[in-house]
């Protein structure tokens, strides 16, 4: 019962402090919002890249390039054969013109190369997904086919992408850590200023016998409210920015097509980000409040 009475008191006092020092609270919320918006942006990119890599890893797309003199019928026959193999799916025959069109879509320079060469140098190819466990069997099954020039495996590309991704993740984590520290530092300083502004009140409270928890806890509540408000506003700004960037810049981004399919973060991620901002508020304000000494 006493705990609930105390918590009620801390909540009321914290809210009163929060509304009383409006300008300082707004400043703190602004800094936290900016930090959380940037963290949300980075987290969204990281989340989507990570998902894309997982999808590619679990279900890689292979390309089988056929020799230049392979006819369309031979290509079709091989496609039909591949469809019958275990662990193979999404088999698609790509004729040279279609292949060049795709290449030109992604890399406009490829169209110019074609003009220079006065012809399409691309062979017929087959795109397909191969389950990792069936890869050796598929390679064995293709050995007798002399029309198979080469098999392109995405693993090299994937490992390159993964190493880039982990470097970027480290960079993102570093920036996020700096932003978190900056926010905690801001909350700490704002609460310190608030404490200094209320030094007289704090002294009176101590002289009439208030326990330190009754003096410190409302400041922690105040910091928590700043963290919560900044977290919600920042997450909303961050996801709004993602929508705007997606609509205006990523929709036609051809080099990395998955970026045009970028999705906003799931609710659990948002909950995590807001919990992080609350934790920043609690940590910064508790540190500041712990410096209040006994009179």
């Amino acid at each position, binding site marked *: *019962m*006493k705990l609930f*009475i*105390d918590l*009620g*008191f801390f909540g009321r006092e914290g809210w009163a402090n929060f509304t*009383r020092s409006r300008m300082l609270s707004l400043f703190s919320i602004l800094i936290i919002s900016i930090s959380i918006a940037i963290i949300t942006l980075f987290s969204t990119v990281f989340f989507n890249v990570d998902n894309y890599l997982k999808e590619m890893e679990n279900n890689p797309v292979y390309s089988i390039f056929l020799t230049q003199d392979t006819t369309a019928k031979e290509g079709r026959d091989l496609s039909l054969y591949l469809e019958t193999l275990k662990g193979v799916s999404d088999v698609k025959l790509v004729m040279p013109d279609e292949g060049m069109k795709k290449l030109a879509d992604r890399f406009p320079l490829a169209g110019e190369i074609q003009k220079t060469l006065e012809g399409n140098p691309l062979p017929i190819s087959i795109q397909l997904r191969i389950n990792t466990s069936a890869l050796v069997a598929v390679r064995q099954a293709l050995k007798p086919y002399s029309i198979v020039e080469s098999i392109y495996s995405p693993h090299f590309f994937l490992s390159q992408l993964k190493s880039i991704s982990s470097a970027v993740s480290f960079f993102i984590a570093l920036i996020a850590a700096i932003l978190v520290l900056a926010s905690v530092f801001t909350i700490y300083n704002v609460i310190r200023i608030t404490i200094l502004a209320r030094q*007289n*009140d704090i002294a*009176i*409270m*101590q*002289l*009439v*016998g*208030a*326990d*330190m928890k*009754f003096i410190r806890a409302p400041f922690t509540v105040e910091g928590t409210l700043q963290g919560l408000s900044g977290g919600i506003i920042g997450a909303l700004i961050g996801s709004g920015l993602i929508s705007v960037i997606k609509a205006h810049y990523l929709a036609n981004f051809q080099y990395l097509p998955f970026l045009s399919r970028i999705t906003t973060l799931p609710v659990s991620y948002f909950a995590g980000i807001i919990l992080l901002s609350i934790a920043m508020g609690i940590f910064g304000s508790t540190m500041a409040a712990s410096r209040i000494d*006994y*009179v």
Partner: protein
Amino acid sequence: MIHFFHVSKVYEKGNRALHEVNVSIGKGEFVFLTGPSGAGKTTFLKLIFREELPSYGRVVANNQNTIALGKRQIPDFRKKIGVVFQDFKLLENRTVFENIVFILNVLGYPASFLRDRAFYVLKLVGLQHRYDDYPRQLSGGEQQRIAIARALVNEPLILLADEPTGNLDPDLSLEIMALFEKINSRGTTVLIATHDRDMIRRMRKRTLYLDHGHLQEHRK
């Protein structure tokens, strides 16, 4: 209840506020502390509720040596002592009601009790109708009465008052003194620092005289 053993208090720059003070105030006593300005009255009171520590000697209040008190024990120690400060020390951004209720909140009284108790003490000092005003909206005398109400609200074992009638007219001063006597009759030890010699004469209580930090005693 309150004991001073060879207590001296020397502030910075060698300013001596109290010198070799030895005195005991028993439980349930009503005592006046008087003397000229700068005699050390406020320091005497501050030593009791441990706003100050003695430079020499020791002060024991409510069976606790103030020097030996740990920082964390100070709030509990002060909760048993009601203080009417000379400068009132009211919380400026809280209403009269909130100033009173704050004490009950920190003592963990249930919400149902707060309102009744706060209005009870406000009625005792005749200011129940000003419950929603802020201290700055009150006169000096009214602020003083609120400070008295706050000191009484948790029925402390010791009540210290520093010039509690300094801003009150004679009639109201008598009323407040009657209130202190009433509190005292319930067993609370009351120590009042005052300049008001007429009041001291009228009340006929034990009186301690401080002069330049030296204590003399006059029994009623």
